[in-house]
C-alpha cells in the first residue's frame, strides 16, 4: 500500500502551510497502522493518491494497481466522493452473502465546518490584532485544516484497503465498479424516506439485539465473544471520548503558549531596559516549544484517539456480525419448529424440510466465517494497538527530548547573559 503522495487543498488555503514532509510521513505511517495485516498483495493494491478539497466536498483520487483479469487495465484511477464510499459500504451490509463477515466500517464524513468557521472568524477579526498575531493564528488554523484533511483522506483509504485485503469482499462486483468506472456513479445520498427506513431498521435491530442476546449461546466461543464485545465496545467508546477531550485540552494549552510568545515579543520590543533581549529570547522559546506541544497533541490524537475511534467502529461492525448470526440462529430454530409441526401434521413436509436445510446451511456458514472473522479481528486489534502504543511512546519521547533540549539551550543563553 503506497503512501499518500500529497493531498491538495484549494488554492486559498495553500499560503503559509507550515509543515513539511516529516509531518506527512509520520501521520501516514500511523493511520495505515490501524490495520496492520494489510500486506502488500500484488493481486490488488488500492490507495488514494490525491485529494482535492472544494467548497463543500472532497474529491478523492482512487488509484488501483491490479494483476487480476477482472479489470481492463493493470493500473488506473478514478475520482470518488464520500457518498460513493457510503454507497459501497451499504451495499456490503445489505448483501446477504456477506452476513458472515465483519464489514469494514464506513469512513466518517469529512467535516471541515468547525475549521472553516474558525478561519472565517479569524478573517473578520483581522483588524483587532497585530500583524504577527494574525499571521501566527492563520498558520495555526491552516495547519489544523490540513491535519483534518489528511485524516479524512486516510480514513477513506483505510476502508478501501480493508476491502481490498479481504479474500471475499475484494471480489465484489460493486467494489470493482467503484474502482474502475470512471464516470460518476450517480449515487445520490439517501433521501428522507430512505433515511427514515434506515432509522427504523436500526431500531428493530437493537430491539432484536436485546431479545436475541438474551438467548445463551450453546457455543462457548460465541458466548464469550458476545460478552466480551458488548463490554469492550462500551469501554472503547468511553476511552475514545476521554482521549479526545485530553488531546483537545493539550491543544488549548499549546495555543496559549502562542499568545504568551506574542505578548513576550511585544514586551521585548517595547521595553526600555536591558530586559528586552531577555523577553525576546523567551518569546522565541515559547514559539518553538509551542510547535512541539502542538505536535504532541496531534500525535496523541493520531495514535490514541484515532486508534480508539477506529476500534469503536470496528467493534460495532463485529457486534453487527454477531447480531446477524444470532438472527440466523433464531431463523434456524424457528425453521426446526416449523418442520416438527409439519411432520406432526404431515403437511408441507418437503417445503419445511428445504426451508430448514437452508436455514441450517446459512447458520453454519455464518458461524464458520464469523469465527474466523472474530479471530482475525482480535489479531488485527492486538497488532494495531501494539504498533500505535509503541509509536505513541516513541513520539512522546522524541518530543519531550526535543522540548528539553530547547529549554536547556534557552536557559544556558539566558543564564550566560545575566
Amino acid at each position, binding site marked *: 500500500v503506497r503512501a499518500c503522495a500529497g493531498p491538495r487543498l484549494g488554492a486559498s488555503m495553500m499560503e503559509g502551510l507550515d509543515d513539511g514532509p516529516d509531518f506527512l510521513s509520520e501521520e501516514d505511517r500511523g493511520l495505515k497502522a490501524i490495520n496492520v495485516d494489510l500486506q502488500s498483495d500484488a493481486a490488488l493494491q488500492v490507495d488514494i493518491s490525491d485529494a482535492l478539497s472544494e467548497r463543500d466536498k472532497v474529491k478523492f483520487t482512487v488509484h488501483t494497481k491490479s494483476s487480476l483479469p477482472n479489470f481492463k487495465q493493470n493500473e488506473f484511477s478514478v475520482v470518488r466522493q464520500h457518498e460513493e464510499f457510503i454507497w459501497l459500504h451499504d451495499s456490503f451490509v445489505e448483501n446477504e452473502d456477506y452476513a458472515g463477515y465483519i464489514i469494514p466500517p464506513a469512513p466518517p464524513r469529512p467535516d471541515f465546518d468547525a475549521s472553516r468557521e474558525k478561519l472565517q472568524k479569524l478573517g473578520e477579526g483581522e483588524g483587532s490584532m497585530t500583524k504577527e498575531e494574525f499571521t501566527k493564528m492563520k498558520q495555526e488554523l491552516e495547519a489544523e485544516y490540513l491535519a483534518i484533511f489528511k485524516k479524512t483522506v486516510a480514513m477513506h483509504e483505510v476502508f478501501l484497503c480493508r476491502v481490498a485485503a479481504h479474500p471475499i469482499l475484494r471480489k465484489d462486483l460493486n467494489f470493482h465498479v467503484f474502482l474502475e468506472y470512471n464516470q460518476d456513479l450517480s449515487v445520490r445520498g439517501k433521501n428522507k424516506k430512505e433515511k427514515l427506513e434506515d432509522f427504523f431498521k436500526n431500531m428493530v435491530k437493537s430491539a432484536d439485539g436485546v431479545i436475541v442476546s438474551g438467548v445463551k449461546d450453546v457455543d462457548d466461543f460465541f458466548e464469550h465473544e458476545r460478552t466480551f464485545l458488548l463490554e469492550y465496545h462500551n469501554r472503547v467508546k468511553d476511552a475514545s471520548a476521554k482521549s479526545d477531550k485530553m488531546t483537545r485540552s493539550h491543544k488549548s494549552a499549546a495555543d*496559549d503558549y502562542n499568545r504568551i510568545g506574542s505578548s513576550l515579543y511585544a514586551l521585548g520590543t517595547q521595553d526600555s531596559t536591558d530586559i528586552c533581549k*531577555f523577553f525576546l529570547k523567551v518569546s522565541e522559546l515559547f514559539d518553538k516549544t509551542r510547535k512541539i506541544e502542538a505536535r504532541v497533541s496531534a500525535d496523541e490524537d493520531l495514535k490514541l484517539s484515532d486508534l480508539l475511534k477506529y476500534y469503536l467502529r470496528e467493534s460495532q461492525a463485529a457486534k453487527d456480525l454477531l447480531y446477524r448470526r444470532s438472527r440466523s440462529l433464531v431463523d434456524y430454530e424457528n425453521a426446526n419448529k416449523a418442520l416438527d409441526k409439519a411432520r406432526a401434521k404431515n403437511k408441507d413436509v418437503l417445503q419445511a424440510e428445504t426451508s430448514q436445510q437452508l436455514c441450517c446451511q446459512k447458520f453454519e456458514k455464518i458461524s464458520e466465517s464469523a469465527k474466523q472473522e472474530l479471530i482475525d479481528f482480535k489479531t488485527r486489534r492486538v497488532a494495531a*494497538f501494539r504498533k500505535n502504543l509503541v509509536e505513541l511512546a516513541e513520539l512522546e519521547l522524541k518530543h519531550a527530548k526535543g522540548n528539553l533540549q530547547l529549554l536547556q539551550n534557552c536557559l544556558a543563553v539566558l543564564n550566560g547573559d545575566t
Partner: protein
Amino acid sequence: MAAEREPPPLGDGKPTDFEELEDGEDLFTSTVSTLESSPSSPEPASLPAEDVTANSNGPKPAEVVLEDDREDLFAEATEEVSLDSPEREPVLSSEPSPAVTPVTPTALIAPRIESKSMSAPVIFDRSREEIEEEANGDIFDIEIGVSDPEKVGDGMNAYMAYRVTTKTSLSMFSKSEFSVKRRFSDFLGLHSKLASKYLHVGYIVPPAPEKSIVGMTKVKVGKEDSSSTEFVEKRRAALERYLQRTVKHPTLLQDPDLRQFLESSELPRAVNTQALSGAGILRMVTKAADAVNKMTIKMNESDAWFEEKQQQFENLDQQLRKLHASVEALVCHRKELSANTAAFAKSAAMLGNSEDHTALSRALSQLAEVEEKIDQLHQEQAFADFYMFSELLSDYIRLIAAVKGVFDHRMKCWQKWEDAQITLLKKRETEAKMMVANKPDKIQQAKNEIREEIEEWEAKVQQGERDFEQISKTIRKEVGRFEKERVKDFKTVIIKYLESLVQTQQQLIKYWEAFLPEAKAIA
C-alpha cells in the same frame, strides 16, 4: 545616586558633606525630619540639642558620644517621635539645618547640628552601608518567610494567623533570627502606615495583597475543600512576596513600623483596614475624589523625563495585563488537561480490564498508570504556571499602579505649589491696593496682618517649590531602583519558571521510557 556613593568621612566639616547630604540622603533626611518636626511645638527642634547636651559636656565630646551611642540614640529618638504622632506628614527638606529652624537660634545650634549632621549620616550609613553593599551585591542579608497558616477562632470572627520569620545579619535588629504571628489585617495595617508616610513624597511603596471577602468567608465558615486551601496558600505566598519586596527597599527597611511588625510579639490591632469599615469607605471616597482631581490638574511639565516615564509605564501596564491574561488562560487549560488526563487514565484502565488478550490488557493498564502520573505532572506544572509566572505578573501590575500613584502625588504637589503662588500673588495685590488707599489709622493693623500673611505665603511658596523638587528627585531615584528591581525580578522568576518546565519534560521522558518496553512486549 545614593547607592553608589561612599559615606561621607567622619569629622570632616567641609561643605561638601552638606552637598552630599542635600543630594538626598533619603534615609537621613526622613529620619532627621521625624526628629525635628512636629505639629505641636518648638520642642522637637530642641530635642536633638537636648539629647546632645544630656549625653555630653560640649560640642566636641558630643560627637564622640554620638558615635558610641549612635544607634541607640537615634533609634530611641525615632521611636519616640513616631509613637507620638504616627499619622503626621513628615516635612522633607533638602537642607538639614533650616529644618531645625523657626524657633531655636540658628547661630547657636548650627555648628552643633553641623557636626551632628556630619556624624549622623555616618551612623545611618553604617547600617545603610550594609544594606547598600548587599543591594549592590544582589544579596540582601535579610530573608523573610511567611508560613504555617493557622485558623484562630471560630465562625465569622475567625481569622488566619501566619508565622512571619525573619533571618538577618543586619545590626539594626536585635536578633539574627526571630518570628512572630501576624494576621492579614496586620499586613494591611503595615502597608497603610508605610503608604501614609512615604507614598506622597515619592517613594514607591509595594502594595499589599488584595482583600477577598469571598475567599475569607469560605475559610471562616470552615470549608475544608481544596479551593479554600488553595486560597490560603495563594494568600500566604502573596504575603511573603509583599514582605520581601518591602524589606528590599532601603528606606522602608529603616522604618520603625516595619521593624515593629517584624519583631514585636504584640502588635496593636489595625482596625481601619476592614473593607467595610468607616475608614475603608473614607478611603474609597478619597480615591474617587483623587481620580476626579487628577483629570482636572493641568500640569506644565517642564521635565520631559517624567512625561516619557509615565508613557512607558502606561505601555508596560497594558502589555503586562495582556500577558497576564494569556498566562491565566494557560493555567486554566493546564488544570483542564490534568483533569482530562486523569479521566482518560481511568477509562484506559477499564479498557485494559475488558481486553481479553493478556499482554495487551497489561499494556493498557500500564498506559493508564503512566497517564495518571502525567496528570500529577500537569497539576504541578499548573501550580508553577500560577505561582511563579502569573502571580509575578499580577504583582507587577499592582506595583505599576503604585508607581502611577507616585507620579500623581507629584502632580498634586505641583498643584499645591502653584496654588500657593497664586494665593501669594493675590495677597500682594491686596497689599498693593492697601498702600494706595488713604486711610491711615485703621489700616495699619490690616497692613500688618496682610504683611504677615504675605510672609506666611512666601514661606509656603518656597516650601512648595522645595517639596516639588524633592519629590521629583525622589521619584527619579525610586524609578531607577524600581526598574533595576523589575529587571532582576523578572529574570529570576522567569528562569525559575523555565526550570520548572525542564523538570516536567525530564519526568515525562522517564515515564515514557518506562512504558515503551511494556508496549513492545505486546505479543
